[in-house]
């Protein structure tokens, strides 16, 4: 009987990835992972060679963000594995499906402090949904299948497989486990997807009885691909919607019911609507401290319906009146059906017109605002963003770094389509945007991808533009260059009496020359007059990546702002709106 094929562990690994329909992976080889790079030569999988392993991780995240499919990164042992810790943690915090394969020293050398040995599974245990050290080549197909199953079901997240060199070199007999075998091998893993029918009915009744309902939607709506059903429910009952930082685009900003982003740097209407609501309908959000502000004063009059696939999110921060564990899409569909049934049976929705007109009033009075610069004055970052936004082709994907520019992007861009906004929400990883944008563009070559970056962030991972150039993955980068670690500078200005400590980045480098050295087109914009031309040029270039260095006002601050640990009621408005704050009652 010789229909059983003998493969090396390395061949089995690459074939397993092919079997999981991996089209593209991001990585960089080295000693222990070397055997796996050989069968890659004849594989259908496209491998993107990065310049730093952190870049591979964020690229895999960017890929996963826009496709919903797991991003795959492969790197060697020791320093390469430790370079992956940040993206793994980032993916873990933001529930991004991701598979990371690390090389490991041979099984015989484990525990001897061998060259480039580190305890990868130990180090990454708390930043992965699951990880596994594979000790025998026979175990590879099952480990890969389990990894993809775990990464993509339940609450998605990163899974790491650590593969010793001899496990890659030794041979095995190829078999591909069935779905049933995979499920049976994980007796402790059974995510709940369907909501409890009694709770669903309860939720539907509460929604119809609420005078001030608010849909509070988070990243879970995108993970569950539930944007369309959420919209159906919102429209049926005309309930306003706030979209968290992780859910921008899940409900169109252009929609009359959309209030935009709540939270520390959310807009006044979204923040206040949460505070005044009598029913928060939370779909796939987690009452993050950046959203709630001081928890004891958060939405004091609101009952809470909380839909989350992760039972541990129920009651972690705020005790829900109606907890529903399940997949957002399935549960929202069920809630919608239940609401429709109740309406058909003659139940009616409480009149929410007064609430809606109150919310509309806030929205009219408190738009996101900034002061335009004086003629001849410095560029305003918000103005640059508006220009970029208005010139962007439909379907543009926006990827941001972390800092003031991130908050401005979320506030000033108009996201009208799911999966067009990619950012590092939970971990807040500076340096995320350039590699994540490359990953997004690799997944969606048909789309324009703008990375909106800070000058500080850009200097953390800019070298991946070399990867972009050599791999022909052409992205566009707008650096909102305020020559400061701007967000930190803002806190020092506001909370440390303008005592600026280690936040000034002025002087170098020359971003245009740097961009050119990496094979990109570099453009500098110093004045308002140059903006349109630069953006037009950038949008017209499709055979190279482009970097625009927008030299913007140094001392601009992000408003609104809820200072850390304070109540959302005490949100600091843009100075021009402070005199009207009485209207937010």
């Amino acid at each position, binding site marked *: 009987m010789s229909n059983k094929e003998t493969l090396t562990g390395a061949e089995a690994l690459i074939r397993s990835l092919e079997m999981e329909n991996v089209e593209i992976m991001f990585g960089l080889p080295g000693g222990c992972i070397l055997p796996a790079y050989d069968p890659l030569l004849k594989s259908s999988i496209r491998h993107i060679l990065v310049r730093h392993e952190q870049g591979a991780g964020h690229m895999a995240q960017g890929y996963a963000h826009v496709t919903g499919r797991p991003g795959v990164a492969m790197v060697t042992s020791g320093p390469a594995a430790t370079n992956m810790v940040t993206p793994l943690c980032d993916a873990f915090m933001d529930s991004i499906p991701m598979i990371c394969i690390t090389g490991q020293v041979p099984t015989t050398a484990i525990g001897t402090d061998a060259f480039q040995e580190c305890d990868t599974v130990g180090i990454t245990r*708390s930043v992965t949904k699951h990880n596994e*050290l594979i000790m025998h080549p026979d175990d590879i197909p099952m480990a890969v299948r389990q990894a993809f199953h775990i990464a993509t079901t339940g609450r998605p997240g990163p899974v790491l497989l650590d593969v010793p060199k001899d496990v890659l070199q030794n041979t095995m007999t190829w078999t591909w486990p069935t779905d049933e075998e995979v499920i049976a091998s994980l007796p*402790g893993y059974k995510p709940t997807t369907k909501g409890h029918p009694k709770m669903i009915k309860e939720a539907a009744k509460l929604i119809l009885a609420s005078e001030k309902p608010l849909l509070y939607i988070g990243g879970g709506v995108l993970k569950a691909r539930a944007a369309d059903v959420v919209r159906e429910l919102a429209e049926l009952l005309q309930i306003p919607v706030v979209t968290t930082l992780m859910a921008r685009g899940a409900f169109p900003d252009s929609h009359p019911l959309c209030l935009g982003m709540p939270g520390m740097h959310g807009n006044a209407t979204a923040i206040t609507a949460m505070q005044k609501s009598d029913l928060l309908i939370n779909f796939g959000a987690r009452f993050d401290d950046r959203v709630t502000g001081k928890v004891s004063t958060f939405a004091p009059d609101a009952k809470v319906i909380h839909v989350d696939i992760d*039972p*541990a999110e129920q009651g972690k921060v705020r005790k829900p009146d109606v907890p529903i564990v399940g997949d957002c899409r399935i549960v929202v569909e069920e809630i919608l059906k239940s609401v429709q049934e109740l309406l058909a049976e003659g139940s009616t929705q409480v009149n929410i017109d007064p609430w809606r007109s109150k919310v509309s009033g806030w929205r009219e009075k408190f738009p996101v605002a900034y002061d335009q610069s004086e003629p001849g004055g410095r560029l305003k970052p918000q103005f640059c963003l508006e220009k970029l936004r208005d010139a962007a082709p439909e379907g543009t994907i926006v990827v941001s770094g972390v800092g003031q520019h991130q908050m401005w992007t979320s506030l000033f861009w108009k996201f009208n389509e799911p999966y067009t906004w990619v950012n590092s929400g939970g971990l807040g990883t500076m340096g995320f945007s350039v590699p994540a944008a490359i990953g997004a563009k690799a997944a969606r070559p048909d789309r324009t991808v703008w990375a909106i970056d800070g000058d500080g962030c850009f200097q953390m991972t800019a070298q991946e533009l070399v990867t972009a150039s050599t791999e022909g993955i052409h992205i566009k980068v707008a650096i909102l260059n305020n020559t400061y670690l701007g967000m930190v500078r803002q806190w020092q200005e506001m909370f440390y009496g303008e005592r600026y400590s280690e936040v000034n980045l002025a002087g170098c480098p020359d971003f245009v020359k740097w961009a050119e050295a990496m094979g990109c087109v570099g453009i500098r914009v110093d004045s308002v007059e140059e903006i349109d031309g630069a953006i037009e040029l950038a949008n017209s270039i499709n055979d190279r990546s482009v970097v625009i260095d927008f030299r913007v006002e140094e001392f601009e601050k992000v408003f609104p702002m809820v200072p850390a640990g304070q109540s959302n009621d005490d949100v600091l408005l843009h100075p021009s709106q402070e005199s009207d704050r009485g209207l937010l009652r």
Partner: protein
Amino acid sequence: MRTINSNNPFGDSHQHHVLSVLVQNRPGVLARVSGLFARRGYNIYSLAVAPTDDVDYSRITIVVDISATPLEQIVKQLFKLIDVVRITELDPRKSVERELMLATVRIDGEHRGQIVELANIFEAKVLAVGSDAISLSMDGTPEKIDDFEELLKGYGIVESQRTGRVALPKLEREARKGALKGKAS
């Protein structure tokens, strides 16, 4: 040193909760479980682990010192570990609990008899007797061991070691038959 989220790691036994955690018997599983407690800032009071009758599974008995709300959270977080199959919180009134203690106690001639007598009362075993010390072993409920340990302290404990408790749900009369059939899932 202060610990996060845990108050009064000794005494105050109503803060003690006993979790019986059935896990897949795989490398690193104990590190996953204990790491999760450390990461979330909860203190483990005692921990005992061994394979069950089915060697594919181990049972970890953890005594934690927390109030009910964080307990619910830690249980949910524990359950997210892929290797964790089942978690039962054992109500001391509805479970059988045992612990083992080894202790070496100083003796001088006149006390030897007293200590042996004490050991008899507590059904402890004398493991070894030296000229100036005696080694004992005792198993029983944690409370009984507490009492025994307290009494031994009066004579001077040279060294002692407790295993931490292990526990199983008490069988209700009616439930006995069913429980015996429906083995560890």
